[in-house]
């Protein structure tokens, strides 16, 4: 073990260190996540129009109110799916990717972006803009400055709800599409 405590903290002078405000992280890009979750297969973009009815069903199954965007769905030749979605909680916004096999079972989940905040910042469009178009290859300053954050556990319950709505999406929209493709 090799540990050097911050001397300012030990002598009770933490007051003079400026707080670093948590925190936004970009982990992997959509392309990287595709290679991680569905390796060695080419994916074809397969956007879906999300009807109000589908949106409602996804909402009631997952309790996530934030609308699902149907333009981030890909399909592989073997029938597996790759879907990117976001969950916006009171304290965080998480962009994540889910892979499903040809029978709709979740085969993997990867976090693309994690923006932690206290609600109002996420709602503020300008605040959000600073992350638009950024990828893991183009690290934002926050990403470099803040690496190792300890502290109490943040629950991943919201994300679990997000994955639930992707499962509903499969049942209602993707499964039938797969069947009709087979029938052709």
């Amino acid at each position, binding site marked *: 073990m090799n540990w050097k405590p*911050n001397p300012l903290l030990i002598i009770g002078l*933490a007051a003079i260190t400026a*707080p670093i405000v948590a925190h936004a992280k970009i982990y992997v890009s959509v392309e990287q996540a595709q290679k*991680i979750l569905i390796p060695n297969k080419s994916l074809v973009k397969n956007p879906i129009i999300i009807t109000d009815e589908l949106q409602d069903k996804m909402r009631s199954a997952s309790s996530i109110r934030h609308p699902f965007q149907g333009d981030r769905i890909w399909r592989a030749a073997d029938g597996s799916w790759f879907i990117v979605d976001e969950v916006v909680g009171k304290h965080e916004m998480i962009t994540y990717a889910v892979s499903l096999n040809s029978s709709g079972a979740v085969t993997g989940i*990867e*976090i693309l972006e994690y923006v932690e905040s206290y609600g109002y910042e996420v709602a503020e469009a300008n605040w959000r803009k600073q992350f638009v178009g950024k990828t893991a290859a183009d690290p934002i300053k926050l990403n470099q400055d803040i690496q190792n954050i300890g502290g*109490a*556990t943040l*629950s991943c319950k919201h994300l679990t709800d997000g994955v639930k709505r992707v499962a509903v999406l499969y049942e209602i929209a993707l499964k039938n599409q797969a069947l009709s493709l087979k029938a052709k």
Partner: protein
Amino acid sequence: MIRCKPLLGTFIEIRIEDQSPPLKALDEAFLAIEQVQYLMGFHNPDSELSHINLRSHLEPIRIHTWTVEVLTIAKEVYLQSQGIFNCGIGHHLAEAGLLPRHFNLKDCSFGGIEDLQFIEPTLVKSSLPLCLDLGGIAKGYAVDKAVEVLIANGIQAGSVNAGGDMRVFGNHLQDIQIRNPSKPHELIQIGSMKVGAIATSSLYFANRNTNSKSFMVNPLNQEHIEFSESYSVVASRCVYADALTKVVSISGNTYHPCLEFFSAQAISIPATLSL
């Protein structure tokens, strides 16, 4: 490269500093964490932990060497802390709605980790019904396993962070920040670490309703406890760091003798710290 996956009920972040690391190193590290979740998850009714909780007072249960190791460490910290650390409090958390109920809790009088006995190196039996929750230490253990996998794959430097329980390795100091318990979105630089682990215990993210109980239970009087500060423990392995945060936060003693036994140090951040 840095990747993040939801596992063990939190977010697991694995960071590798090497320029072109073998990609399988990260995959294998995440698999090790999944394996810990599969073996020791309270939420999964088919985990080895759930089998122990359901049947170890009725018949001997054969367990994986990783589960053996975590239970052995749990017993060791129980002994050294004179019972302040005891993972046999799962029924209190289930009764408070903080963990799922897999069986009827009402008819049981539960024992603790001290009632679990090893008949053989991988065979356990209990003298009383058990409701063990390995939550924290299994998370710390998973972090250690992931680091072992990375090092075995030749990775030179990096870190694994499981919702705030973290371990770093490599040949240069890495800054460590923890959350300010009174304003958890603010971070305090508490030091830097080259090789080692740190875990933190606090209730600021408990996300509780006003009526619900704290997830921290004092095993000595079986009561849910409340505190507003945060307690961090630095140790060589994350499994010890996590277990010892319970000892420190329940006793309120950052100089508990148990820390020295495990070559660990504790840091308390008061909720009144102004920045």
